[in-house]
C-alpha cells in the first residue's frame, strides 16, 4: 500500500496516526505540507525515522523546493510526479488528510 500524507507534523497528528496503520513494505509519500516531516533534527523527525524502519519514504521534490527544504532525514527519497504515478501503478493508496 501507498500512504500519502499532506499535513505538517507540527500542527497535525495525521502522520503520527498514520504510522499505526503502515505495514512492512508499505510506502509513505509526503506531499504538500507533509514534506515538513522529512526535515532533519526536528522535534518530529523521529516519526519519519520510525517510518523508514518499515519501508520506503518519499518526499515530493516540488513541495520541498517550494518550501526551501534541503536538510532531510537520511533515507528519505525524492519523488517527482512521474515517480508518484509509478508508485500508484504499484499500490492502492490511502490519503491521510
Amino acid at each position: 500500500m501507498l500512504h500519502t500524507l499532506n499535513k505538517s507534523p507540527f500542527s497535525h497528528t495525521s502522520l503520527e496516526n498514520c504510522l499505526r496503520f503502515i505495514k512492512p513494505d508499505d510506502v509513505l509519500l509526503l506531499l504538500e505540507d507533509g514534506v515538513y516531516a522529512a526535515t532533519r533534527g526536528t522535534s518530529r523527525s523521529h516519526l519519519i525515522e520510525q517510518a523508514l524502519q518499515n519501508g520506503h519514504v518519499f518526499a515530493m521534490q516540488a513541495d520541498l523546493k517550494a518550501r526551501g527544504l534541503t536538510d532531510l532525514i537520511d533515507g528519505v527519497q525524492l519523488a517527482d510526479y512521474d515517480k508518484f504515478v509509478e508508485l500508484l501503478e504499484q499500490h492502492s493508496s490511502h490519503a491521510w488528510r
Partner: protein
Amino acid sequence: MSDAKKVMITVRKPPHGSIYVHEAIEVMFIVASFGLDLSVVFIDDGVLALKTGQDTKELGIKGFMASIGAFMDFEVTKVYVDRQSLEDRNMSEADLAFIGEDETTEQPVRPTILDSSAIAALMAEQQSLMAL
C-alpha cells in the same frame, strides 16, 4: 458479492465542525447501492461521528444522526471503528450508536471495533480507498 470490487471509505474527521462526515455518509449509501463490497472504517476523530446522544437542533444544522441508524438498511453493513481512537477519546463500545438490526436475531447492532493491525490488513485487501 465475492467478485465485487472491494472499496473502503475511511472517516477521520469529527462531525458537525465540518461537513465531511455528513457528505461521506451520502457517498457510503451510493457506493453500497452499486454492489461494491464496501467497508467503512472510522479512525481518529472519525470515531466521534458514531457517538450516541448527538443532537444538532440548537445549532440549526440538520445533521446526519438518523442516517447512522439506517446504515444496515442501506447495505452499509461492514462498519468498523479503531480501538485506539476510541480509547484515546475515553469512549467504549457502549458509547457507539447502533447502525441497524441483525437480520436474523433482530437485535440492534453496533459497529465492530478493530485493532489497528486488523484495519491495516483490511486496507491491504482493498481495490480502492476513499478518505472522506
